[in-house]
C-alpha cells in the first residue's frame, strides 16, 4: 500500500520513453481485434452466417486459444496504459464504465456464451446470446475511445 501511495507516474517508462505508450496502444488494438474478431466468428455462426460448414461448437474450439491470446494482450497492455496516469483514469466515467463492462463481458463469454455455443442446437436463444455478446464487446471499444472525449 505504501508502495502504491509512493508511486509517481512521472517515473513510469511509459511517460519518459517516446515509444512505450504507442507500442502499448498498438498491442492493445491488435489484442482486442484478435479477442473480438474470434468471438464474433462464433457469434456470426450462432446467427446462422459466417463459416457455415462448421458448427458454433467447432468454431469455438478452433478459436478459443486465440481469443485467450487476444485477452492476454489486452490484459497486459491495458494495465500498462492505465499505469501511465492512474488518477486520471480512475476519475474518468467512461473508463469506469469500460472496466465494469469488461468484467461482465469476460464472465459472460466464459459462462453463458460458451455454454450456448457448445450446446447441440443453440437455436433462437443462441441468436440472442450472439447479439448480446457483440453488443457487449462493441460497447467496450466505444467506452475505450470515449475515455479521451469525456
Amino acid at each position, binding site marked *: 500500500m505504501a508502495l502504491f501511495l509512493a508511486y509517481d507516474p512521472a517515473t513510469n517508462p511509459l511517460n519518459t520513453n*517516446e515509444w512505450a*505508450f*504507442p507500442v502499448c*496502444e*498498438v498491442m492493445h*488494438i*491488435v489484442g*482486442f*481485434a*484478435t*479477442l*473480438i*474478431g*474470434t468471438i*464474433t*466468428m462464433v457469434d*456470426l455462426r450462432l446467427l446462422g*452466417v*459466417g*463459416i*457455415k*460448414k*462448421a458448427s458454433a461448437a*467447432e468454431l469455438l474450439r*478452433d*478459436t478459443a*486459444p*486465440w481469443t485467450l491470446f*487476444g485477452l492476454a494482450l489486452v490484459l497486459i497492455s491495458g494495465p500498462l496504459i492505465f499505469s501511465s496516469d492512474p488518477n486520471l483514469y480512475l476519475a474518468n466515467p467512461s473508463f469506469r464504465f469500460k472496466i465494469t463492462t469488461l468484467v461482465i463481458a469476460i464472465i459472460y463469454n466464459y459462462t453463458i456464451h460458451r455454454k450456448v455455443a457448445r450446446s447441440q442446437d443453440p437455436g433462437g436463444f443462441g441468436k440472442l446470446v450472439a447479439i448480446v455478446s457483440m453488443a457487449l*464487446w*462493441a460497447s467496450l*471499444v*466505444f467506452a*475505450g*475511445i*470515449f475515455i*479521451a*472525449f469525456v
Partner: protein
Amino acid sequence: MFDWLQGMAIATAIRESALVYPILLSLHLTGMALFGGMILMTDLRLLGIAMTKRSVSDVVGGLRPWKHLGLTMVVICGALLAWSKIALYWPNPYFKLKLILLTLVTIHALVFRNSVYRNPELDRTGIPGSAKFAAVLSLVLWIGLVSAGRWIGYWEPEKEKTTAVQIR
C-alpha cells in the same frame, strides 16, 4: 486547398460536434476489431497455425463478407475522420505512411487474390510457400498500418514545438 476541403459543411459538422468525431473513431475501431481479428485468423490458417481442422476455402470464404463489412466500416469512418481534419493530418508523416501502407495492402489483396484467397486448389494441394509468404506479408502490413495510425497522434509539427517553448 485543405482548408477549403475541410471547410465543407459535412467536414465542419464532424470536426465541431462533440459526439460525431468520437463515434466515427469508435466505429473505425469496431470495424478494425471485426476485420482485424478475422484477417489474423485467415493468415494464421494459411500458415497452418490456427483453424487447421477447417479447410482454407471454408475459412477464407466464410469470413470474406464479414471482413469486407469491417473493412468498409474502417475505410468510410477513417476517410470521414481524415477529411474533417485534413489540414492537420496532411503534414503528418505518419498519416502519409498510413496512406502508403493502405495502398500496399490494396496491391497485396489484388496480387494474391486469385492465387491464394480465391484458390480452391489449396484445399487439395496443400498450402504453397507463396501463400504463406502472402500471409506473413499481410500481417506485417496490417500491423504496420495500425502502428502508423497510432503514431499519427504523437507527431507534432516543428512550428508548434517552437510555439510551445515560447509560451513557456
